[in-house]
């Protein structure tokens, strides 16, 4: 079912700051987007990403999680502006949620949203930061373990697998 256009813009990592932050350095952002591999660029604009973030926001509504903030963090991780290992801390600090919730949210993002493109994200992260979470060397990246989508109770496991996306 098509998502409301406003929701799409609100939860899309690509459009998230377009309406609300007119002073954003879009040129810098756009240059970085232009440099991305097509799969990651498509992930930013994908409607499935918006839907995923929307679902995540619904799940954690009681925790005051805001979809736009998650969209920003996801965008920043994809663009390698934020280290992927810092994602739980970023979620925790920016959204004001406790550490466990932040880690759980980060795991959900990595295991479900990033899963189809994880290798490309790892590559970019490694290039930018020279390391990956859970590894003392850059050769063995350790990232939050993927969690099956079924663990998101409110969606009933109805998480769209982007690997099967056309």
């Amino acid at each position, binding site marked *: 079912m*098509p*998502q*409301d*256009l406003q*929701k*799409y*813009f609100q939860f*899309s990592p*690509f*459009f998230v700051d*377009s*309406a609300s932050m*007119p002073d954003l350095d*879009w040129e810098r952002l*756009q240059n970085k*987007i*232009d440099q991305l591999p*097509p799969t990651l*660029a*498509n992930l930013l*604009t*994908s*409607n*499935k990403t*918006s839907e995923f973030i929307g679902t995540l926001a619904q799940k954690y509504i009681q925790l005051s999680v805001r979809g736009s903030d998650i969209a920003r963090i996801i965008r920043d991780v994809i663009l390698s502006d934020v280290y992927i290992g810092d994602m739980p801390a970023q979620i925790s600090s920016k959204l004001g949620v406790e550490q466990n919730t932040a880690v759980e949210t980060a795991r959900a993002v990595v295991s479900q949203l990033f899963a189809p493109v994880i290798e490309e994200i790892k590559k970019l992260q490694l290039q930018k930061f020279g390391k990956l979470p859970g590894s003392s060397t850059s050769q063995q990246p350790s990232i939050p373990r993927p969690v099956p989508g079924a663990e998101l109770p409110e969606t009933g496991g109805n998480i769209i697998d982007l690997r099967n996306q056309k």
Partner: protein
Amino acid sequence: MRGISTKKLIPFLAVVILLAVLVFPHPAKATVAGDIADFLGFNFSSGTLGAIVNGITTLILTFVKTAISFFADLFDKFIRWQTDNAIYGVVVVDQSWTIIRNFVNMFFILILIIMAFGTIFDIPNYGWKSGQPPMIVSFLISALLVNFSLTIGQYIIAVANGLSGVFLKQIVDVSGTFAQGFNIVGTATSGSTDLISGVTKIIITEIFAIIFLSVVMLAFAAAAIFSLVRIFVLWFLLIISPIAWLGYSLPNLRGQTWSEWWKQFFCWCFFLPYYLFFVMFAVIFVKNRGTIPPIPSGGATAGMAGTDFLFYALSLIFLIGGLVIARKMACASGTGIKTVFGKIEGGVRKYAPGASYVRAIGAGAKEGLKAKGEQIQEKGIPGIIGGAQAERLRQAKWTERFGFGAARGEAERVKLAEIEKESTKLKQELQGKPAEEQKDFLHDAQSRRGVAGEAALFEYVKQGYSTLDDYKEAVKKYGGENSALMRQYLENIKQAKLSDLFQSPDQELRIARGQVEDTRDLINLRRELYKDLAKRNQISDVPVYKEAKQLLSSIPAELKSFLDSIKPEYIVGTKEARQDAIRDRTLGDPDLERKLVEFMKDKKEINDVQLRQEALAIVGGKNTIEGRNVINEINKFNPVINIEADLREERGISVDQPLSADNRKRIIGEIADKISEKEFAGLRKMSGKFWEDEKTQQAVRQTFDGDDIAQLLENAPKEMKRALKDLPRATKPSEAGAAPQKEEPRIIIPSGVTTGRTEETQKSREEILRELGKIP
């Protein structure tokens, strides 16, 4: 005797006996013969045998010498007779000529009528202006000069005879001189008494004496017969000369009458002086025989008259060789005299074995002589005669001089043809030379006389050795750049490499633009330079292009060649500059604009509606072939441009006017249609500028949902993503204060996607899809 068979012994003895029998006539020979006979056991008295042999050889030699004297006398008399008084005042010739002339004069009226009909009905070769010279001119010339044809012919014969007279003065008494000169009796030396010496003497003195004198006799016989025939043939030719002049006025008969008559006439006329020239040398030789120092006798030459051999050989070369060369010099191939003399020559060779000896003497030089003979025939002898080549050039010059406008340039054309022939020969010479010597060879060959030198110059140029100074000199030499020779010269430069003429591309360009003082007037060179520069993509700005075009405009073919070579991307270097040039029409040159559109179409540079409109205007509209090509190419990479352009055209909206929301909506409707049909690829080809437009974004917001936009952005070009980044901020039409739109009937598209579409829009969509080839 062991080792010698009977079969070999018998012929040997027979030869020895024969030689013994044929022993020479003077006492010494008789003695030797007697000795041999005695040695072999024959019972002959040596005096008797000698007398018999002597008698036989003396008889033969006397006969031959008498014949030589007879024919030489005959020859002498014939030529003196015809050079003295056999030309003028020959009644039979005069009367016969008068009859023929009167008869021929009747035909001139007929020719006038033929010419009149030829002109009226435009019959090829028979109009009054047709042919070279024009038929009316040749008619007037022939009608006038036919009355002087006898006098003209007689005068030419007199000239030939006068020339003959020069040589005849040196030949006072032909028969006496030769009879005396070829008296070879007593040439053997005495004193040899051995067998080998005796055989040698017999062979050398008797047999060869007979052979030599026979050849001389045949040569004189041929000359005498010819000199007799010559005068009758010339009389005949004089009598029929009015027919030849009549033929001159009829282009189709000119070759068989006029040309053929002159060929025969010159041939028979001038053979005599040429031949007498060689006879004169022979006479000088014979007369001065006594002054030639004798070759020492003894050893191998024991008993031989070595001096006599030399003397005979050279005399024969002059007599027989002169006959051949004179024929070649006087007559072109295929003439009657060639046929006659071919037979005479054949006869001499067949019946005079000595002719073989003469050929054997010059065997090494035979081919060389033959080639030299042909060369003399073609090129003549410097300072004496001109040869066939010179004659062709002379004729062309006269044709040009009297041929009025029609024959202008004839001399140069003929000269070029001659140069071409010489070039072929020159190339053969060149083939045998190493590459490093060819330049010097061609340079030196330029000093050759006449056309051969010029052929060397042209070949030198063709090989790419010439310089700009050479070109300037050639312009002076050949009377300006527009002469046919100079044009060929320039062609030859082009065949090599035109740019080699210059030190740098910059110099080349400055000369082409006329910025160098002493080459400014070399228009043809500058034209070629511009064409060459264009081919090498060296025309890199609009002013140079325009100058080139102006210079080449007087010759359409050259202009076309130049324009075909031009690559507009080198003249207008960047995409932006090209788009500005088309959009603003700043080039001011339709040809360049057209080429630019052609280039931009292929490079997907016609990427907005205004550019499309200007491009179509340049190529003559969208219904021309070029116009359709432009539209088709745009369809391949951004069909929306065509959709928008058609909409603007349909509704009379100029390209600089913004589209109303309604119109935008219609375009977006088309786009939405594509979305519904999963034609995202086509949509992604829309220009960034289109997507940047606020109204476009408003329409998108009104029409698209998030899923559509996401699909649209998937793998979209950077420009499109950049343009659509502001989509969330785009004001909705209602927010901008636009009048609330009437609810339009919504059409369900087969895929299920709903879009705001009117019936009118649906109709337009079908048209567009049809144009795009989506539906039949």
